[in-house]
């Protein structure tokens, strides 16, 4: 995999026109596979993420679980969510899910973002924030179905998981994948990971008694470039609030495709209208006005 090829931009937020060079070469879509059934909650991926991305120390917060903190932060992009799910027989199923950016095929953050080039989607599926173009409006926060983008008040910019686009661009796997000791995390092409995930789900259904085991790759946002294998794919909510049917608010679609171009033009009619009024109808003057020149003189003026 050539390094340049993987960083071909596919979509740019708030940008007029197409992404230059898109479609010239064919790119393999990358994917992270998280098999929640073999995660042991060691948090090696959390540490690897903080270390590789060289982020400052984030204070932890105890909330009666093994979780490092209640949710991801601007300087803590990768969080294992611990959930205790009561089974019908009274025992408890301990669910651990690695929470991070899902790198949606149709990213809500990118749809909502007004800033030119603040969010880009690479042809390999990675959705990346370009902080130098970010204006800190936080609209991506409301556009995201997974509550991933986090605002840093000090820099007034928003941050999130990059899927280690810097590493992937050099042909390396993301830091979290490299750190995982159990093989719960895998990285490869979307097709390969989807195949592995489906095989694993089938194995869970047939050999381990998890009848509802399945793969989480929500099609409501065109699929994601992080897929989960879940013991019970019928209720992803129990895995720390993974939405069963993630959607982008419709208002962002209306706003982007209707309001901005159509109503923006409409507002300019006010300017065009008054200019035309002045040169056609003309101003209304306080009365009485000076009398007009004689008929014969008018054409000279």
């Amino acid at each position: 995999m050539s390094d340049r090829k993987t960083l071909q931009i596919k979509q740019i937020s708030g940008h007029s026109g197409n992404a230059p060079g898109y479609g010239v070469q064919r790119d393999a879509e990358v994917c992270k596979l998280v098999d929640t059934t073999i995660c042991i909650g060691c948090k090696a991926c959390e540490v690897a993420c903080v270390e590789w991305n060289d982020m400052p120390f984030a204070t932890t917060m105890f909330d009666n679980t093994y979780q490092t903190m209640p949710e991801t932060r601007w300087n803590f992009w990768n969080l294992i969510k611990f959930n205790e799910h009561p089974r019908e027989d009274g025992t408890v199923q301990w669910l651990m899910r690695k929470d991070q950016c899902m790198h949606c095929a149709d990213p809500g953050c990118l749809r909502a973002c007004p800033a030119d080039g603040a969010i880009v989607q690479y042809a390999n599926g990675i959705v990346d924030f370009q902080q130098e173009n970010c204006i800190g409006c936080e609209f991506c926060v409301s556009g995201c179905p997974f509550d991933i983008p986090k605002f840093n008040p000090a820099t007034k910019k928003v941050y999130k998981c990059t899927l280690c686009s810097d590493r992937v661009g050099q042909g390396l796997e993301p830091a979290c994948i490299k750190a995982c000791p159990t093989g719960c995390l895998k990285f490869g092409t979307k097709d390969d990971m989807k195949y592995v995930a489906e095989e694993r789900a089938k194995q869970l259904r047939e050999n381990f008694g998890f009848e509802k085991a399945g793969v989480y790759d929500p099609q409501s946002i065109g699929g994601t470039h992080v897929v989960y294998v879940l013991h019970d794919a019928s209720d992803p909510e129990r895995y720390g609030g993974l939405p069963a049917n993630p959607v982008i608010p419709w208002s962002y679609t209306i706003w982007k495709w209707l309001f901005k171009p159509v109503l923006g033009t409409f507002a300019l009619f006010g300017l065009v209208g008054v200019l035309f009024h002045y040169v056609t109808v003309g101003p209304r003057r306080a009365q009485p006005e000076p009398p007009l020149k004689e008929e014969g003189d008018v054409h000279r003026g």
Partner: protein
Amino acid sequence: MSTAVERFDDKARETFDRIGHTEVHVGELLRHRVYTRFLHWMVALFFFLALFSGFGIYLPWLFRWFTPIFGGGPLARAMHPWFGLGFVIFFGLQTLNWIKPMTWTQADSRWMRNIKQTVGGKEKMDPPDTGFFNGGQKLQFWEIVAGSILYLITGIILWIGADTFGRWTVAVSYVLHDLSALVMLGGIFIHIYLSTIGEPGTFHAMTRGTVSEAWAWTFHPAWYKEITGRNPEQACEEARRRGEFSK
């Protein structure tokens, strides 16, 4: 309106008349007192600060050249709500100040029905029952009142963010906030045009507070009649006979 508001307005008007003053020359009428003018220009200042900082958030790929004025995109975004708050506060005071002359009347409904004639320049003078403000001015005023309420509610939601109000509330507020801005943007062109080159002589009312008598009997005949006690048509006719022409 309640007397408390009236007492507040009267006190503010008197205080501002002591700070500044309005000279009414011969042939002129007092139109806007110092307090009204002060509020108008504060509203205008905050409106344009909010508008230009908002442009950078609305369409950066087209209006990113506005944001350096405010120190870049993030700072423009951070200051925009404060500009908006200033706009709402001063326009709120102006609403209290103007609530009486802006009350809608039968004459305004007639003025609106007659709008084609007025805008088309078919009639030289406004209808004889046009008071201190005409129907068009009142329509724009009440549009800004409604728009400001919408601004304030949606603006606070956008300011505080999705963590408090939920992502759907923010996403819908976003569209409503922009809708209100676009309506006002369309309106500001008309407002500036009519107060400057569209109806010459109007601008002076908001700068030094006075208008010529000719301006008054032409555009607001009923107001002219109310304060001078003279018939506007007749006054205009007399001026014509004397050979006085407005500039």
